[in-house]
């Protein structure tokens, strides 16, 4: 490593610093610093009017550092429960996204070179309109007067079943979560699948593998890194999402993101909100790390 460094000319070294410098500063300013502030805030008492209680004050009033938010968190199963629920929603979203995105990504990757860019553009196209407008659009699509609801309830009615409400339900939340995050699964999968050498498939065919075997023994194992990065890109934002359950969710669709938001707004309890955020970060990192570990072990056998 050091030998390599010595070979670099001063100009190249400067370029290297300049190139890596701005992301480094960015991370420091917008990730490390707020993270540290959050950790510090979690050890404080909430202020009487919101915010944080002072670090030093007259004896008799609450001040200084404390572990009470962590005690509060662990003294009550309900917060673990809500983490678990968010985890399930995130996993379900990731899985559905994967199942829907894989064929699409494969289709794009196997299309003629000329049409690929156009198809990728189509995948990204929803981003051209605002995120919230697209969520509000689902309110109309899933509403009780909408064609979808009328058709479904007509069908259910024909079998003598109770009509269902699609809007304001866990179903609506899941639909919107998948809808919003689908491109994040398609794009990494596509970048991965596009890199595959078609010669490998020809070789497999020459060796007598049928279409299914070619996919399962060649394409799929090679695409595992793409699956992993796509899953991470979907899983992490879904874990923290609060706008979708807020807008489309029913009376029981509180996720961890909503709970954190509530701490900062309704309850004005910044320390506990910070604690929840830290727990969320730890949970997500832990989960992704375990998934990566499992992925790499499996990769060795493939």
């Amino acid at each position: 490593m050091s030998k390599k460094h010595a070979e670099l000319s001063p100009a190249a070294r400067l370029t290297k610093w300049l190139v890596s410098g701005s992301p480094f500063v960015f991370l420091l300013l917008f990730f490390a610093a707020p993270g540290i502030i959050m950790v510090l805030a979690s050890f404080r008492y909430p202020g009487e009017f919101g915010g944080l209680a002072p670090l030093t004050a007259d004896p008799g009033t609450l001040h200084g550092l404390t572990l009470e938010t962590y005690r509060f968190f662990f003294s009550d199963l309900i917060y673990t429960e809500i983490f678990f629920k968010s985890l399930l929603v995130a996993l379900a979203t990731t899985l559905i996204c994967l199942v829907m995105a894989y064929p699409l990504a494969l289709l794009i990757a196997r299309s003629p070179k000329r049409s690929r860019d156009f198809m990728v553009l189509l995948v990204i196209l929803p981003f051209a309109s605002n995120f919230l407008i697209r969520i509000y659009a689902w309110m109309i699509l899933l509403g009780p007067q909408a064609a979808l609801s009328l058709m479904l309830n007509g069908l259910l009615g024909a079998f003598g079943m109770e009509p269902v409400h699609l809007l304001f339900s866990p179903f609506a939340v899941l639909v919107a979560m998948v809808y919003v995050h689908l491109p994040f699964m398609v794009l990494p999968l596509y970048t991965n699948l596009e890199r595959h050498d078609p010669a490998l498939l020809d070789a497999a065919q020459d060796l007598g593998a049928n279409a299914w075997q070619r996919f399962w023994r060649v394409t799929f194992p090679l695409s595992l890194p793409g699956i992993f990065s796509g899953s991470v890109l979907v899983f992490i934002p879904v874990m923290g999402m609060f706008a979708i359950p807020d807008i489309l969710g029913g009376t029981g669709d509180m996720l961890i993101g909503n709970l954190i938001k509530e701490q900062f707004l309704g309850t004005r309890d910044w320390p506990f909100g910070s604690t929840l955020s830290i727990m969320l970060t730890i949970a997500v990192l832990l989960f992704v790390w375990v998934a990566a570990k499992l992925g790499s072990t499996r990769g060795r056998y493939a």
Partner: protein
Amino acid sequence: MKIFSHITSDLAAVFWQPSRMASSYIREHRDHREVGVFLCVLCVLCGSWFVSSSALARDELHLYNWNNYISAETVARFETQCACRVVQDYYSDNEEMLAKLAAGATGYDIIVPTGNAMESLIRQQALRPLDKAKLPNLKNINPAYLDTAFDPGNRFSVPYAYTLTLLGYNVEKMRELGLPTDTWAVIFEPEFLEKVKGRITVLDSQRELMAAALKYLGYSASDTDEAHWKQARDLIIRAKPYWAAFNASSYIKELTVGNIWLVHGYSNDIFQANLDAQKAGRKFSIASAIPKQGAVLSLDSMVLHKTGPRPDLALRFIDYMLEGSNSAELTNLIGSGNPNLDALRYIKPEIAQNPAIFPDAQHQVNLEMLRDLNRHQRRVLSRMWTEIKLR
């Protein structure tokens, strides 16, 4: 960990998308009031929020008010009268305003907080006492709205307008189903709820919903007895399966299009929903009613912030807003309650005679303003709220 290197390369390809989404969050979240506040608070945490209070050369009055809470004509007339400019800034939530001030925003002459938020500001000593000699029109205010527990003797505040938290409903549907609209029982009792299952929304607000439940149980809306809270929580959990959603923003639209028939909501919003429904030529109308058990009244008052550079102009503006004709314009615009007795004669008769905006003496008695909770109570309530949402 080799697998992470793949992520980084893929991340680069899609990096602009999340950043774009983040910025669109901020831009389009006017409807979705909490997000603005949330970002505010985050910024405070980052310690990076900064609002400059520049020295002003010309006459300017800085007004920090709710969204859509003053008529443009009223402002324009004041500007001609005082030969000054009214610079307006808006918030959509008391918490948003408090968070912004707590983060060090300065330079606002007048703020229009709700009672409990005002109490916070008073206790933080952030307000300037009023010079009542400069407010001859203060006599117009109905004494019932003066001398509240938040500001005894009105040392700091002048009532501006009020909102009630009550029942809003689709008149035709309620008549068709034969449901009462004068009692909280209609949103809490399964015998009524069965007929409107999935067609009800309640406010996504811990305090407001608990207040409705407490009122229905016969307690005070500001009751802080944990045993009473638990009863209210159980009542809410029992009724919850029948409700469509906890909603504090889009219920206006849902009422207007006829998807939702009954709401627990704010009087201004329900007034707006009816206006929209009539404008769209719907075959039904939306009305509101104060339940007989009582309801929450939120009184917004004008106060002078300590950092405001022009208290003289601010007092002049307050006195101007206390004139009946000016005050009435707001009520005519958004259907807000009006504490100004002199304004009544300028208010459109259909609004002035609406008992859900100007309640009669019998309902007036049961209206209550919410007191602020202390940090311990806030945390206990939040714990219950989480339970309500999760069960």
